């Protein structure tokens, strides 16, 4: 229990010379994260090919790729 509460108080930072520094966690009041690193995470489970094709030509209803929903079935991962 003691270890867990202790861990929440810092985050590790690896410096170039190999030194790892425990940096104090800040209280977030200036930054509100709306969406986490979804793209980086999508590398792991992406590429199923179920999504619709996304024509980007303005002569159709041009889709910005990001407009599309991911159609990979939810697996609870």
């Amino acid at each position, binding site marked *: 229990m003691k270890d867990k509460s202790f861990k929440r108080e810092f985050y590790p930072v690896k410096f170039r010379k190999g030194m790892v520094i425990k*940096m*104090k966690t800040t209280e977030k*009041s200036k930054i509100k994260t709306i969406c986490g690193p979804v*793209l980086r995470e999508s*590398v792991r489970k*992406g590429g199923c090919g179920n999504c619709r094709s996304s024509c980007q030509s303005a002569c*159709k209803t*041009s889709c910005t790729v990001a407009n599309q929903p991911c159609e990979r079935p939810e697996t609870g991962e």
Partner: protein
Amino acid sequence: MRETFHKFKQGEHFILLDITSGGIHVVDELIYKMLDFVNFSEPPFKEAKDHPDIKEPVCPASLIEQFSDYNENDVKACYNELYEMSASGLLSGEGDADYGDYAEMNIGAPLKAMCLHVSHDCNLNCGYCFADGGGFGGEKLTMTPETGKQAVDYLLNNAGERRHLEIDFFGGEPLMAWDTVVQTVEYGKEQAKERGKEFKFTITTNGLLLDDEKSEYINENMANVVLSLDGRREVNDRLRPCLNGKSSYDVILPKFKKLVKNRTKKGFTDYFIRGTFTSYNLDFAGDVVSIAKEGFSNISIEPVTVPETFPFALKKEHLPRIKNEYDRLFELMRGNHGKWSFFHFVIDINRGPCILKRLRGCGSGNEYIAVAPDGNIYPCHRFVGIDEWKMGNINKSGLPDLKIKEYFSKTHIYAKEKCPDCWARFYCGGGCNAESFLFEGDARKQSELFCEWMKKRIECAVALAVEKKI
């Protein structure tokens, strides 16, 4: 220089996008300003007050001086928050070189989608038609039902293990080849059942030939329907007149209303009223509002794509006005309580496509092709009729021109001229290859005009999504 983050102000929100990770953050004004000056490369640190073995970064004196108008403790607190964000990988810094490994994973991908040009003829006389009145620079042709069925077979035979396939009925005006549409859909459904596949059919129509029977069939069988209308009556009729020069608006509007009413009753919400804006109606938010007032909720108004020689072409000088109009639409949409949505401002920031999809965009010429009425295959509908891009013919066995397929499978964002360094690269996926070719002479060279309005729309879309979550 590759942009690793992008900050913008939309409405009253200061928004920070971390390009590589996909992270989206709302920040306060001081952080917003500080982002232009901050550098996180191994800052000095000091002991934290209460824990001797925990450190905290020391805010550089230059930053405190830069923001001397602000309270010093606030500057330090902002710096610390930003530093933690960076050190935790939420402000990537080093770019996305790691995604380059996935860029060419799609070479030789099986087919997924097909745009079927069932009619190279049209019953309207739109001034901006890129299809030259439906004929795409050639003869006015109608696809036979047999060719439609062969196209279904071609897609199925080249789809590999893919289960979800798409066919879009396009033209010209596809309702002028209604028999081909129906026979192709029925054959497709039958074949899909036999082969364990699922088709999503879609259709894009000007609506002139819609009647109850066709509307009913579309509502029963099409996963999406795109209904062309430019907005206000005078705007629509100026560039979308009937062949006899009379108003198309008065004929089409009641038909669209009926189709959408019946579609919605059945519980299908996928449809779009899709219009075009030109330099004649740079106040196009008014057209969105006009369409919404007629009771439609899914609305898209697209910029016209014609050469600058056309009197109503969009040019660089129009960009400030276009951006202002997107701002106006942003304000209108945030205040409409969900009654209608503007297509380009709808984005699911948490569950969008994976990075593999975002690297390659539409997949034209590789997993998406267009088929002309005579069975000729092109990378997409915008290349139809251009000989150098003809990939083959569905009536002939064998794979399409592999050189063209390979070229498009390698036309990902890292292969394009400006995309690798652009902040919007994972939102737009590199834009439209055909428009790049038609306007810049190279499918890998983006038009600045298209990039600029694309970026503005992304900012508005992200800001609206953010607003729902704060």
